[in-house]
């Protein structure tokens, strides 16, 4: 099982599970990253973090530390 953090730019993946709890998890889910949704990893910021992804038709940026909570396939 991989986390979103390990996915290179340009790949599309599907979310299988979200780990963790509390505000960060809720915010991630509020923004539309839920089980079964497809995520396209668009790019990494110039300094290596955060990452930019496309989810549910819009662009979202999140830190790699938080991307680790998202299990994908």
């Amino acid at each position, binding site marked *: 099982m991989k986390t979103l953090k390990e996915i290179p730019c340009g790949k599309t993946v599907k979310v299988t599970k979200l780990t963790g709890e509390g505000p960060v*998890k809720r915010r991630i889910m509020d923004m539309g990253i839920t089980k079964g949704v497809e995520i396209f990893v668009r790019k990494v910021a110039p300094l290596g973090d955060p990452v930019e992804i496309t989810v549910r038709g819009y*662009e979202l940026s999140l830190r790699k530390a938080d991307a680790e909570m998202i299990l994908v396939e």
Partner: protein
Amino acid sequence: MSVKIALAGNPNCGKTTLFNALTGSNQFVGNWPGVTVEKKEGKLKGHKDVIIMDLPGIYSLSPYTLEEVVARNYLIGERPDAILNIVDGTNIERNLYLSTQLMELGIPVIMAVNMMDIVEKSGDKINIQKLSQKLGCEVVEISALKGTGIQKAAEKAVAIANKKSVALPVHKFATEVESVLEQIELKLGSDISEEQKRFFAIKLLEKDDKISAQMKSVPDVTEEIAQIEKEMDDDTESIITNERYVYISSIINECYSKNKKEKLTSSDKIDKIVTNRWLALPIFAAVMFVVYYVSVTTIGSWATDWVNDGVFGDGWSFFGISVPSIPSMLESGLIAVGCADWLQGLILDGIVAGVGAVLGFVPQMLVLFVFLAFLEACGYMARVAFIMDRIFRKFGLSGKSFIPMLIGSGCGVPGIMASRTIENDRDRKMTIMTTTFIPCSAKLPIVALIAGALFNGSWWVAPSAYFVGIAAIICSGIILKKTKMFAGEPAPFVMELPAYHMPTVGNILRSMWERGWSFIKKAGTIILLSTIFVWFTTYFGWVDGQFRMLDDMELNHSILAAIGNTISWLFIPLGWGDWKSAVAAITGLVAKENVVGTFGILFGFAEVEENGAEIWGTLAGSMTAVAAYSFLVFNLLCAPCFAAMGAIKREMNNAKWFWFAIGYQTLLAYVVALCVYQIGTLITTGAFGFGTVVAFGLVALFIYLLARPYKESNTLKINLNRVAGAKNM
């Protein structure tokens, strides 16, 4: 009878544009009581009795962010007659997520699907009739930018608000979830009306820690939660969120069809360059250079100089016609009517100078606010956070903190005001508190004075001032984020990068004016009062046992000198315990460059150069180099000038936070100056005493505060009653 309509929607969905179009100039802008969240209210054009309340832009009604808590407390507590839910048509899936939550509140909802012009252009289709039927509310197509459809949306909202009806949500979740919700609804007390039951049931199921404050009796639902969590193998909060998106996906499939041809939008093309791995930082530097150059170095500073030196100084010329300054006009007027000296002084040096101090900052600020409004509205500001996040988050700051700090190197006042662009409450407060550590242009004369008088004009003094400022920001960030004051606010960085678009001139000018005016109104009072206070204590005092007004050169008899004498012992451990330095530090609060002038007067010079060259010798004779550097550090870091304090007060919007900020800055300045003096003296002279021990103790404490472990909080701590009880400004 008046009706209230709440305008709710995601950030970046065109809510501000719609609000401006609906209300025109009938707006009232302020803050929600006690918090830094902006509150806007206005009257609908052509309907005097319809009040539109612009809620903060939010993604959800979770209990974790200040904006969301403020918005939902208003919706639950004040119960507007209708909600106008604005939805971005180009991003409908995520926007509907908030809609499903708004519809559970029992308040009738009208949905306005915005940016329809862009949707049509891209070839996508939204079936409005079907959407309306599925969601159980009326849906109107609009384009806030072009002004199409907004009249219709407003009329529908007014009509439904006038009915004073209630609305029951139509959407349903999975059967397991529905049956649990039903069980919880049965347990709810009679204080909760039928139409609100679903909302409260869901919040209880989600284990929402803020909801019990809104209820008379809180039923115990742990059993239901345990049951469904076991059944669905997830926590209830995630179950509900999942269910919402499952429901939205089912609607989207039926009502929304995407243009098959996937092609790059112009926004994508811009982003390819602007946030490109190699180009992003140079572009960012170029944008920042332009902002700084125009608003600080050129136009902004010309405008400020014109107000300060022309309108409130020596007069100015209007196409060759010389116009006398306001003070000189007033002065001749006052002399003509034979006004008493002290009254003349009060009016000219107290009140007019105070008003000048407030207004002097405004032109520069307006120039800066135009830039900020543009950068925010076009979408680049979000990219700034994206690019700079890596550096700033380590100190508990946002990537957007870069802009306030950059501007702060010119002037701290617009710098503090620029922190408004930071949406996260904790990052914003932290930025407000630390921005003035950067040496602003008014502090440079102090640096020049100390460098010239005691360090032979050494090259390293000025850079070291910036180094001290930056170090103070970094250390404060790390220390403060671990303190009780800040630990209560979780700050996940999950940020939307909105599509680029060209903002309208009207919106930018309005945003500029709102921010500028709020500075004049909220910060103006404190600046004016403090200027008058310092004027009074400077020009009045006892000479030979007689209380009277003083001349410029009699400062040593003033009340201020007496105050300086009384508190100067405080600065003995810092190495500059004589009253003159203390007085100079106090006058520095009016404007930092006054420190130099005050020293000049106290050393017997009526007028000195900006860098105080005349008094270098005298100053060098009155303190050691280490003491002088300690004096410099203290003045760089301590409470900023009154204008900046006014800006801090305006932006914190909370007395406790204001005093915490000022207190922290002064304490830090004191501690650092003390350590500089004591340890510096130990190194230069080898003198070891009690003060040295204290200094080492403070350094140890400082290191402990920097290094101590820390855990991010999971709840938002906020005084709910204050926010809930918020009616009007």
